[in-house]
Protein backbone atom coordinates (compact mmCIF):
# COMPACT_ATOMS: atom_id res chain seq x y z
CA UNK A 1 0.00 0.00 0.00
CA UNK A 2 1.23 3.48 -0.77
CA UNK A 3 1.98 5.85 2.05
CA UNK A 4 -0.95 8.12 2.94
CA UNK A 5 0.12 11.70 3.57
CA UNK A 6 -3.36 13.04 4.28
CA UNK A 7 -6.31 11.01 5.58
CA UNK A 8 -9.66 12.65 6.18
CA UNK A 9 -12.66 10.74 7.53
CA UNK A 10 -16.16 12.12 8.10
CA UNK A 11 -14.90 15.67 8.36
CA UNK A 12 -17.60 18.16 9.35
CA UNK A 13 -17.09 21.87 9.84
CA UNK A 14 -19.81 24.32 10.82
CA UNK A 15 -19.56 28.02 11.48
CA UNK A 16 -22.29 28.51 14.07
CA UNK A 17 -25.16 26.49 12.62
CA UNK A 18 -24.01 27.12 9.05
CA UNK A 19 -22.36 24.00 7.61
CA UNK A 20 -19.25 24.67 5.51
CA UNK A 21 -18.10 21.03 5.13
CA UNK A 22 -20.46 18.07 5.39
CA UNK A 23 -18.96 14.64 5.82
CA UNK A 24 -15.86 14.95 3.68
CA UNK A 25 -13.71 11.83 3.13
CA UNK A 26 -10.52 11.56 1.12
CA UNK A 27 -6.91 10.45 1.14
CA UNK A 28 -3.80 11.86 -0.48
CA UNK A 29 -0.95 9.49 -1.27
CA UNK A 30 2.71 10.34 -1.17
CA UNK A 31 3.88 12.01 -4.37
CA UNK A 32 0.42 12.89 -5.67
CA UNK A 33 -0.81 16.26 -6.82
CA UNK A 34 -4.41 16.66 -5.71
CA UNK A 35 -6.76 19.41 -6.79
CA UNK A 36 -9.87 20.64 -5.02
CA UNK A 37 -12.10 22.30 -7.57
CA UNK A 38 -15.16 24.21 -6.58
CA UNK A 39 -17.01 27.50 -6.86
CA UNK A 40 -16.61 30.32 -4.38
CA UNK A 41 -17.86 29.35 -0.93
CA UNK A 42 -17.71 25.61 -1.55
CA UNK A 43 -15.27 25.04 1.33
CA UNK A 44 -11.85 24.85 -0.35
CA UNK A 45 -10.06 27.30 1.94
CA UNK A 46 -11.83 25.84 4.98
CA UNK A 47 -10.45 22.40 4.05
CA UNK A 48 -6.88 23.75 3.81
CA UNK A 49 -7.24 25.61 7.10
CA UNK A 50 -8.32 22.46 8.90
CA UNK A 51 -5.54 20.41 7.32
CA UNK A 52 -2.99 22.99 8.47
CA UNK A 53 -4.43 23.33 11.99
CA UNK A 54 -5.53 26.93 11.52
CA UNK A 55 -9.11 25.85 12.21
CA UNK A 56 -10.45 23.05 14.38
CA UNK A 57 -12.84 20.55 12.78
CA UNK A 58 -16.36 20.33 14.23
CA UNK A 59 -16.25 16.53 13.87
CA UNK A 60 -14.31 13.82 12.11
CA UNK A 61 -10.78 12.50 11.89
CA UNK A 62 -8.10 14.50 10.09
CA UNK A 63 -4.58 13.09 9.85
CA UNK A 64 -1.52 14.64 8.25
CA UNK A 65 1.65 12.51 8.12
CA UNK A 66 -0.33 9.94 10.11
CA UNK A 67 -0.96 12.20 13.09
CA UNK A 68 -3.99 14.31 14.04
CA UNK A 69 -3.77 17.65 12.21
CA UNK A 70 -4.19 19.72 15.36
CA UNK A 71 -0.87 18.36 16.66
CA UNK A 72 0.90 19.87 13.67
CA UNK A 73 2.42 22.80 15.55
CA UNK A 74 5.85 21.37 16.17
CA UNK A 75 8.93 22.89 14.48
CA UNK A 76 10.13 19.55 13.10
CA UNK A 77 6.79 18.89 11.43
CA UNK A 78 6.21 22.44 10.24
CA UNK A 79 9.48 22.11 8.32
CA UNK A 80 7.87 19.39 6.20
CA UNK A 81 4.95 21.63 5.22
CA UNK A 82 4.67 24.63 2.92
CA UNK A 83 1.58 26.80 2.72
CA UNK A 84 0.38 29.44 0.28
CA UNK A 85 -2.86 31.11 1.31
CA UNK A 86 -4.35 34.50 0.62
CA UNK A 87 -4.09 35.24 4.33
CA UNK A 88 -0.40 34.64 4.96
CA UNK A 89 0.94 38.12 4.40
CA UNK A 90 4.28 39.56 3.44
CA UNK A 91 6.10 42.42 5.16
CA UNK A 92 5.24 45.47 3.03
CA UNK A 93 8.17 47.65 3.99
CA UNK A 94 10.77 44.91 3.63
CA UNK A 95 12.33 43.94 0.33
CA UNK A 96 11.63 40.67 -1.46
CA UNK A 97 15.07 39.46 -0.35
CA UNK A 98 14.48 40.37 3.32
CA UNK A 99 11.06 38.71 3.34
CA UNK A 100 12.55 35.49 2.03
CA UNK A 101 15.68 35.76 4.20
CA UNK A 102 13.46 35.73 7.31
CA UNK A 103 11.88 32.45 6.26
CA UNK A 104 15.20 30.97 5.15
CA UNK A 105 16.41 31.58 8.71
CA UNK A 106 13.24 30.20 10.29
CA UNK A 107 13.47 27.03 8.19
CA UNK A 108 17.23 26.76 8.50
CA UNK A 109 17.71 26.96 4.75
CA UNK A 110 20.87 28.38 3.17
CA UNK A 111 20.47 31.86 1.59
CA UNK A 112 21.51 30.69 -1.91
CA UNK A 113 18.19 28.89 -2.11
CA UNK A 114 16.47 32.31 -2.34
CA UNK A 115 17.84 32.83 -5.84
CA UNK A 116 16.62 29.41 -6.91
CA UNK A 117 13.04 30.01 -5.82
CA UNK A 118 13.02 33.53 -7.25
CA UNK A 119 14.11 32.08 -10.57
CA UNK A 120 11.27 29.60 -10.41
CA UNK A 121 8.64 32.30 -9.88
CA UNK A 122 10.35 34.57 -12.43
CA UNK A 123 11.28 37.34 -10.02
CA UNK A 124 15.06 37.42 -10.33
CA UNK A 125 16.10 41.06 -10.34
CA UNK A 126 13.39 42.13 -7.89
CA UNK A 127 15.38 41.18 -4.77
CA UNK A 128 15.78 44.78 -3.64
CA UNK A 129 12.24 45.93 -4.34
CA UNK A 130 10.12 46.64 -1.26
CA UNK A 131 7.08 44.35 -1.32
CA UNK A 132 4.64 47.28 -1.22
CA UNK A 133 5.87 48.32 -4.67
CA UNK A 134 5.00 44.96 -6.26
CA UNK A 135 1.85 44.17 -8.22
CA UNK A 136 -0.69 41.72 -6.83
CA UNK A 137 0.53 38.89 -9.04
CA UNK A 138 4.15 39.56 -8.07
CA UNK A 139 3.24 39.43 -4.38
CA UNK A 140 1.48 36.13 -4.98
CA UNK A 141 4.68 34.83 -6.57
CA UNK A 142 6.79 35.98 -3.63
CA UNK A 143 4.40 34.16 -1.28
CA UNK A 144 4.73 31.07 -3.45
CA UNK A 145 8.52 31.37 -3.41
CA UNK A 146 8.34 31.57 0.37
CA UNK A 147 6.14 28.46 0.56
CA UNK A 148 8.62 26.32 -1.41
CA UNK A 149 11.83 27.76 0.02
CA UNK A 150 12.46 24.67 2.16
CA UNK A 151 11.31 22.07 -0.44
CA UNK A 152 8.46 20.88 1.76
CA UNK A 153 7.33 17.26 1.68
CA UNK A 154 3.73 18.50 1.56
CA UNK A 155 2.69 21.73 -0.11
CA UNK A 156 -0.71 23.42 0.31
CA UNK A 157 -1.64 25.94 -2.36
CA UNK A 158 -4.85 27.95 -2.09
CA UNK A 159 -5.53 29.28 -5.59
CA UNK A 160 -1.85 29.68 -6.44
CA UNK A 161 -2.30 31.35 -9.83
CA UNK A 162 -5.51 33.34 -9.33
CA UNK A 163 -3.79 36.69 -9.93
CA UNK A 164 -1.37 35.62 -12.66
CA UNK A 165 -1.28 36.01 -16.44
CA UNK A 166 -1.25 32.88 -18.66
CA UNK A 167 2.49 32.98 -19.38
CA UNK A 168 3.49 33.27 -15.72
CA UNK A 169 0.90 30.65 -14.82
CA UNK A 170 2.49 28.22 -17.27
CA UNK A 171 5.91 28.88 -15.80
CA UNK A 172 4.64 28.35 -12.24
CA UNK A 173 2.99 25.10 -13.33
CA UNK A 174 6.30 23.90 -14.75
CA UNK A 175 8.02 24.75 -11.45
CA UNK A 176 5.35 22.91 -9.45
CA UNK A 177 5.67 19.82 -11.62
CA UNK A 178 9.43 19.93 -11.08
CA UNK A 179 8.93 20.18 -7.32
CA UNK A 180 6.50 17.26 -7.50
CA UNK A 181 9.03 15.18 -9.43
CA UNK A 182 11.51 15.86 -6.64
CA UNK A 183 9.05 14.32 -4.19
CA UNK A 184 6.73 17.07 -2.93
CA UNK A 185 3.11 16.04 -2.47
CA UNK A 186 0.85 18.90 -3.53
CA UNK A 187 -2.65 19.78 -2.37
CA UNK A 188 -4.10 22.68 -4.30
CA UNK A 189 -7.42 24.44 -4.72
CA UNK A 190 -8.50 26.23 -7.83
CA UNK A 191 -11.43 27.61 -9.80
CA UNK A 192 -9.55 26.84 -12.95
CA UNK A 193 -10.33 23.58 -14.78
CA UNK A 194 -7.30 23.89 -17.01
CA UNK A 195 -5.04 24.27 -14.00
CA UNK A 196 -6.53 21.15 -12.41
CA UNK A 197 -6.05 19.18 -15.64
CA UNK A 198 -2.54 20.46 -16.18
CA UNK A 199 -1.25 19.64 -12.70
CA UNK A 200 -3.35 17.11 -10.86
CA UNK A 201 -3.20 13.34 -10.66
CA UNK A 202 -6.64 13.36 -9.10
CA UNK A 203 -9.29 16.03 -8.83
CA UNK A 204 -12.10 16.44 -6.30
CA UNK A 205 -15.25 18.36 -7.21
CA UNK A 206 -16.33 20.25 -4.16
CA UNK A 207 -19.80 21.72 -4.06
CA UNK A 208 -21.73 22.99 -1.03
CA UNK A 209 -19.26 21.41 1.35
CA UNK A 210 -19.42 17.95 -0.21
CA UNK A 211 -17.08 16.03 -2.50
CA UNK A 212 -19.23 15.15 -5.48
CA UNK A 213 -16.56 13.24 -7.43
CA UNK A 214 -12.92 12.37 -6.87
CA UNK A 215 -11.00 10.82 -9.74
CA UNK A 216 -8.29 11.31 -12.34
CA UNK A 217 -8.95 14.07 -14.89
CA UNK A 218 -9.11 11.44 -17.69
CA UNK A 219 -11.76 9.36 -15.92
CA UNK A 220 -13.73 12.47 -15.09
CA UNK A 221 -13.67 13.54 -18.71
CA UNK A 222 -14.96 10.18 -19.99
CA UNK A 223 -17.67 10.34 -17.35
CA UNK A 224 -19.04 13.47 -18.89
CA UNK A 225 -19.99 11.65 -22.10
CA UNK A 226 -18.19 10.77 -25.30
CA UNK A 227 -16.60 13.40 -27.48
CA UNK A 228 -18.23 14.47 -30.76
CA UNK A 229 -16.52 15.46 -34.01
CA UNK A 230 -17.12 18.72 -35.81
CA UNK A 231 -16.49 18.95 -39.53
CA UNK A 232 -16.05 22.28 -41.27
CA UNK A 233 -17.06 22.05 -44.93
CA UNK A 234 -16.02 24.11 -47.94
CA UNK A 235 -19.37 25.94 -47.92
CA UNK A 236 -18.54 27.09 -44.35
CA UNK A 237 -21.21 24.95 -42.74
CA UNK A 238 -20.40 22.84 -39.69
CA UNK A 239 -21.55 19.26 -39.32
CA UNK A 240 -21.30 17.40 -36.01
CA UNK A 241 -21.01 13.61 -36.06
CA UNK A 242 -20.58 10.89 -33.43
CA UNK A 243 -17.24 9.02 -33.24
CA UNK A 244 -18.82 5.78 -34.48
CA UNK A 245 -19.36 3.89 -37.79
CA UNK A 246 -21.92 6.31 -39.14
CA UNK A 247 -19.61 9.22 -38.27
CA UNK A 248 -16.69 7.52 -40.00
CA UNK A 249 -18.82 6.95 -43.09
CA UNK A 250 -19.90 10.60 -43.12
CA UNK A 251 -16.31 11.81 -42.79
CA UNK A 252 -15.15 9.44 -45.56
CA UNK A 253 -17.95 10.75 -47.78
CA UNK A 254 -16.99 14.41 -47.29
CA UNK A 255 -13.31 13.62 -47.85
CA UNK A 256 -14.03 11.68 -51.05
CA UNK A 257 -16.11 14.52 -52.46
CA UNK A 258 -13.36 17.01 -51.56
CA UNK A 259 -15.78 19.01 -49.42
CA UNK A 260 -13.93 18.77 -46.11
CA UNK A 261 -11.93 21.71 -44.73
CA UNK A 262 -11.11 20.76 -41.11
CA UNK A 263 -11.86 18.09 -38.52
CA UNK A 264 -12.15 19.02 -34.89
CA UNK A 265 -12.79 16.73 -31.92
CA UNK A 266 -14.96 18.16 -29.12
CA UNK A 267 -13.55 16.65 -25.92
CA UNK A 268 -15.87 17.23 -22.98
CA UNK A 269 -14.15 19.41 -20.39
CA UNK A 270 -14.14 19.10 -16.62
CA UNK A 271 -16.10 22.34 -16.66
CA UNK A 272 -18.92 20.68 -18.62
CA UNK A 273 -18.99 17.83 -16.13
CA UNK A 274 -19.08 20.20 -13.20
CA UNK A 275 -22.09 22.01 -14.66
CA UNK A 276 -23.84 18.67 -15.38
CA UNK A 277 -23.22 17.57 -11.82
CA UNK A 278 -24.11 20.66 -9.87
CA UNK A 279 -26.04 22.85 -12.24
CA UNK A 280 -23.50 25.56 -11.43
CA UNK A 281 -20.63 27.14 -13.24
CA UNK A 282 -17.28 27.41 -11.57
Amino acid at each position, binding site marked *: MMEQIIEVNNLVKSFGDKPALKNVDFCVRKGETIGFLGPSGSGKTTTIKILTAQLAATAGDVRVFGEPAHLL*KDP*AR*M*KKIGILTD*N*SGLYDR*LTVQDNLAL*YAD*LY*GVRKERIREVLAMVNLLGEERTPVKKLSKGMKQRVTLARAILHKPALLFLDEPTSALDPTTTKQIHEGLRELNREGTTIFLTTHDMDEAEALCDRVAFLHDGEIKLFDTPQNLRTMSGSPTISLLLKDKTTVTVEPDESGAAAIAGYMASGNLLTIHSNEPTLGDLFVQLTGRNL
Partner: protein
Amino acid sequence: MTSFSIKRVNAIFVKDWKDLQRNSYVLFTLALPLFFAAWLGRIGEDSAEMIAFPIVFALVIAGAFVQAAMVAEEKEKNTLRGLLLSPASVTEVFVGKSLLSGIMTVAVVTGCIWLAEFKVPSLPLFALSIVIALVLFLAIGTLLGLLSRTVMETSIIGMPVMLIFGMSSMFKSMITNETILTVLDYLPNELLMKIWSGLESGSFVGESFLILTVWALVSVAATVVVYRKRRMD
Protein backbone atom coordinates in the same frame (compact mmCIF):
# COMPACT_ATOMS: atom_id res chain seq x y z
CA MET B 1 6.14 24.42 21.73
CA THR B 2 8.65 22.05 23.17
CA SER B 3 11.76 23.49 21.58
CA PHE B 4 12.94 27.06 21.78
CA SER B 5 15.41 28.22 19.17
CA ILE B 6 17.68 31.22 19.62
CA LYS B 7 18.28 31.17 15.87
CA ARG B 8 14.61 31.71 15.16
CA VAL B 9 14.34 34.42 17.84
CA ASN B 10 17.27 36.12 16.14
CA ALA B 11 15.59 35.83 12.73
CA ILE B 12 12.50 37.61 14.10
CA PHE B 13 14.64 40.24 15.78
CA VAL B 14 16.59 40.99 12.59
CA LYS B 15 13.40 41.20 10.57
CA ASP B 16 11.79 43.59 13.08
CA TRP B 17 14.96 45.71 13.17
CA LYS B 18 15.00 46.08 9.37
CA ASP B 19 11.29 46.88 9.42
CA LEU B 20 11.59 49.43 12.21
CA GLN B 21 14.09 51.49 10.21
CA ARG B 22 11.43 52.03 7.53
CA ASN B 23 8.47 52.41 9.87
CA SER B 24 7.89 56.15 10.21
CA TYR B 25 5.03 55.76 12.70
CA VAL B 26 7.22 53.82 15.11
CA LEU B 27 10.24 56.06 14.58
CA PHE B 28 8.14 59.14 15.32
CA THR B 29 6.69 57.50 18.44
CA LEU B 30 10.18 56.66 19.67
CA ALA B 31 11.31 60.24 19.11
CA LEU B 32 8.47 61.81 21.15
CA PRO B 33 9.93 61.24 24.64
CA LEU B 34 13.31 62.52 23.38
CA PHE B 35 11.78 65.81 22.19
CA PHE B 36 10.05 66.14 25.51
CA ALA B 37 13.23 65.45 27.50
CA ALA B 38 15.18 67.90 25.33
CA TRP B 39 12.60 70.57 26.00
CA LEU B 40 12.77 69.99 29.76
CA GLY B 41 16.55 70.15 29.55
CA ARG B 42 16.38 73.43 27.63
CA ILE B 43 14.07 75.19 30.07
CA GLY B 44 16.35 74.07 32.88
CA GLU B 45 13.62 72.28 34.80
CA ASP B 46 15.08 70.74 37.94
CA SER B 47 12.18 69.51 40.08
CA ALA B 48 12.86 65.80 40.52
CA GLU B 49 9.32 64.82 39.51
CA MET B 50 9.36 66.74 36.27
CA ILE B 51 12.73 65.33 35.29
CA ALA B 52 11.74 61.74 36.08
CA PHE B 53 8.61 62.18 34.04
CA PRO B 54 10.16 61.83 30.54
CA ILE B 55 11.75 58.57 31.67
CA VAL B 56 8.38 57.11 32.65
CA PHE B 57 6.94 58.57 29.46
CA ALA B 58 9.71 56.86 27.46
CA LEU B 59 8.94 53.53 29.12
CA VAL B 60 5.23 53.80 28.31
CA ILE B 61 5.66 55.15 24.79
CA ALA B 62 8.64 53.13 23.63
CA GLY B 63 7.89 49.99 25.62
CA ALA B 64 4.14 49.67 25.48
CA PHE B 65 3.08 51.71 22.43
CA VAL B 66 5.75 50.54 20.03
CA GLN B 67 5.35 46.91 21.08
CA ALA B 68 1.56 47.19 20.74
CA ALA B 69 1.87 48.71 17.25
CA MET B 70 4.28 45.98 16.14
CA VAL B 71 2.09 43.16 17.45
CA ALA B 72 -1.11 44.68 16.03
CA GLU B 73 0.48 45.22 12.63
CA GLU B 74 1.48 41.55 12.43
CA LYS B 75 -2.17 40.69 12.98
CA GLU B 76 -3.56 43.40 10.69
CA LYS B 77 -1.36 42.40 7.75
CA ASN B 78 -1.74 38.65 8.40
CA THR B 79 2.00 38.21 8.77
CA LEU B 80 1.67 36.63 12.20
CA ARG B 81 -0.35 33.82 10.65
CA GLY B 82 2.46 33.23 8.17
CA LEU B 83 5.01 33.07 10.99
CA LEU B 84 2.92 30.63 12.99
CA LEU B 85 2.66 28.37 9.93
CA SER B 86 6.46 28.20 9.91
CA PRO B 87 8.61 26.43 12.52
CA ALA B 88 8.57 29.61 14.64
CA SER B 89 6.59 29.38 17.88
CA VAL B 90 4.53 32.13 19.48
CA THR B 91 7.09 32.44 22.26
CA GLU B 92 9.93 32.86 19.77
CA VAL B 93 8.00 35.53 17.85
CA PHE B 94 7.15 37.54 20.96
CA VAL B 95 10.57 37.16 22.54
CA GLY B 96 12.25 38.37 19.32
CA LYS B 97 9.94 41.36 19.15
CA SER B 98 10.23 42.21 22.84
CA LEU B 99 14.00 42.06 22.55
CA LEU B 100 13.94 44.76 19.89
CA SER B 101 11.35 46.95 21.66
CA GLY B 102 13.33 46.47 24.88
CA ILE B 103 16.60 47.58 23.33
CA MET B 104 14.92 50.56 21.66
CA THR B 105 13.30 51.53 24.96
CA VAL B 106 16.59 51.37 26.83
CA ALA B 107 18.14 53.55 24.11
CA VAL B 108 15.32 56.08 24.36
CA VAL B 109 15.43 56.06 28.18
CA THR B 110 19.20 56.65 28.07
CA GLY B 111 18.68 59.46 25.59
CA CYS B 112 16.05 61.03 27.85
CA ILE B 113 18.31 60.82 30.90
CA TRP B 114 21.05 62.59 29.01
CA LEU B 115 18.83 65.23 27.40
CA ALA B 116 16.90 66.08 30.58
CA GLU B 117 20.12 66.01 32.60
CA PHE B 118 18.62 63.57 35.06
CA LYS B 119 21.11 62.49 37.73
CA VAL B 120 20.96 58.70 38.00
CA PRO B 121 20.96 57.63 41.66
CA SER B 122 22.69 54.28 42.41
CA LEU B 123 23.08 52.84 38.93
CA PRO B 124 22.59 49.08 39.63
CA LEU B 125 19.30 49.56 41.48
CA PHE B 126 18.16 52.18 39.01
CA ALA B 127 18.91 49.76 36.17
CA LEU B 128 17.01 47.01 37.99
CA SER B 129 13.96 49.25 38.30
CA ILE B 130 14.14 49.98 34.56
CA VAL B 131 14.37 46.28 33.73
CA ILE B 132 11.34 45.38 35.85
CA ALA B 133 9.39 48.29 34.37
CA LEU B 134 10.46 47.16 30.90
CA VAL B 135 8.99 43.67 31.46
CA LEU B 136 5.80 45.29 32.73
CA PHE B 137 5.36 47.73 29.86
CA LEU B 138 6.36 45.24 27.14
CA ALA B 139 3.74 42.83 28.52
CA ILE B 140 1.15 45.61 28.54
CA GLY B 141 2.15 46.54 24.99
CA THR B 142 1.83 42.94 23.81
CA LEU B 143 -1.56 42.74 25.52
CA LEU B 144 -2.74 45.95 23.82
CA GLY B 145 -1.51 44.62 20.48
CA LEU B 146 -3.39 41.35 20.97
CA LEU B 147 -6.59 43.18 21.92
CA SER B 148 -6.52 45.53 18.92
CA ARG B 149 -7.22 44.49 15.36
CA THR B 150 -5.28 47.32 13.74
CA VAL B 151 -2.38 49.66 14.49
CA MET B 152 -4.88 52.54 14.67
CA GLU B 153 -6.80 50.74 17.38
CA THR B 154 -3.73 50.40 19.57
CA SER B 155 -3.45 54.16 19.89
CA ILE B 156 -7.13 54.39 20.85
CA ILE B 157 -7.06 51.55 23.38
CA GLY B 158 -3.61 52.68 24.49
CA MET B 159 -4.66 56.25 25.31
CA PRO B 160 -6.25 55.54 28.71
CA VAL B 161 -3.30 53.31 29.57
CA MET B 162 -0.91 56.11 28.80
CA LEU B 163 -2.97 58.63 30.78
CA ILE B 164 -3.13 56.43 33.85
CA PHE B 165 0.27 54.72 33.75
CA GLY B 166 2.23 57.55 32.23
CA MET B 167 0.73 60.81 33.37
CA SER B 168 -1.21 60.24 36.57
CA SER B 169 1.37 62.21 38.54
CA MET B 170 0.61 65.22 36.35
CA PHE B 171 -3.02 65.51 37.42
CA LYS B 172 -2.53 64.22 40.94
CA SER B 173 -2.69 67.73 42.32
CA MET B 174 -6.22 68.11 40.95
CA ILE B 175 -7.53 65.11 42.89
CA THR B 176 -8.75 65.48 46.45
CA ASN B 177 -10.44 62.10 46.97
CA GLU B 178 -8.26 60.17 49.46
CA THR B 179 -9.09 56.69 48.13
CA ILE B 180 -8.16 57.60 44.56
CA LEU B 181 -4.94 59.17 45.77
CA THR B 182 -4.04 55.99 47.67
CA VAL B 183 -4.74 53.88 44.58
CA LEU B 184 -2.60 56.20 42.47
CA ASP B 185 0.30 55.60 44.84
CA TYR B 186 0.38 51.97 43.79
CA LEU B 187 0.54 52.66 40.05
CA PRO B 188 3.82 51.63 38.38
CA ASN B 189 4.83 55.17 37.46
CA GLU B 190 4.33 56.36 41.04
CA LEU B 191 6.31 53.39 42.30
CA LEU B 192 9.14 54.21 39.89
CA MET B 193 9.27 57.83 41.03
CA LYS B 194 9.21 56.69 44.64
CA ILE B 195 12.07 54.25 44.00
CA TRP B 196 14.19 56.87 42.25
CA SER B 197 13.67 59.57 44.85
CA GLY B 198 14.23 56.94 47.57
CA LEU B 199 17.50 55.89 45.98
CA GLU B 200 18.61 59.49 45.95
CA SER B 201 17.68 60.22 49.56
CA GLY B 202 18.77 56.78 50.77
CA SER B 203 15.36 55.74 52.13
CA PHE B 204 13.92 52.20 51.98
CA VAL B 205 12.66 51.18 48.51
CA GLY B 206 12.22 47.40 48.96
CA GLU B 207 8.46 47.56 49.23
CA SER B 208 8.09 49.60 46.04
CA PHE B 209 10.37 47.18 44.19
CA LEU B 210 8.24 44.30 45.38
CA ILE B 211 4.95 45.86 44.27
CA LEU B 212 6.48 46.77 40.89
CA THR B 213 7.60 43.15 40.44
CA VAL B 214 4.08 41.94 41.24
CA TRP B 215 2.77 44.33 38.56
CA ALA B 216 5.22 42.88 36.04
CA LEU B 217 4.34 39.26 36.84
CA VAL B 218 0.60 39.91 36.74
CA SER B 219 0.80 41.64 33.37
CA VAL B 220 2.90 38.85 31.86
CA ALA B 221 0.36 36.32 33.15
CA ALA B 222 -2.55 38.38 31.78
CA THR B 223 -0.88 38.54 28.37
CA VAL B 224 -0.40 34.77 28.26
CA VAL B 225 -4.03 34.17 29.27
CA VAL B 226 -5.37 36.58 26.63
CA TYR B 227 -3.18 35.01 23.96
CA ARG B 228 -4.39 31.50 24.80
CA LYS B 229 -8.03 32.66 24.61
CA ARG B 230 -7.58 34.39 21.27
CA ARG B 231 -5.46 31.78 19.54
CA MET B 232 -8.17 30.32 17.32
CA ASP B 233 -9.49 33.58 15.91
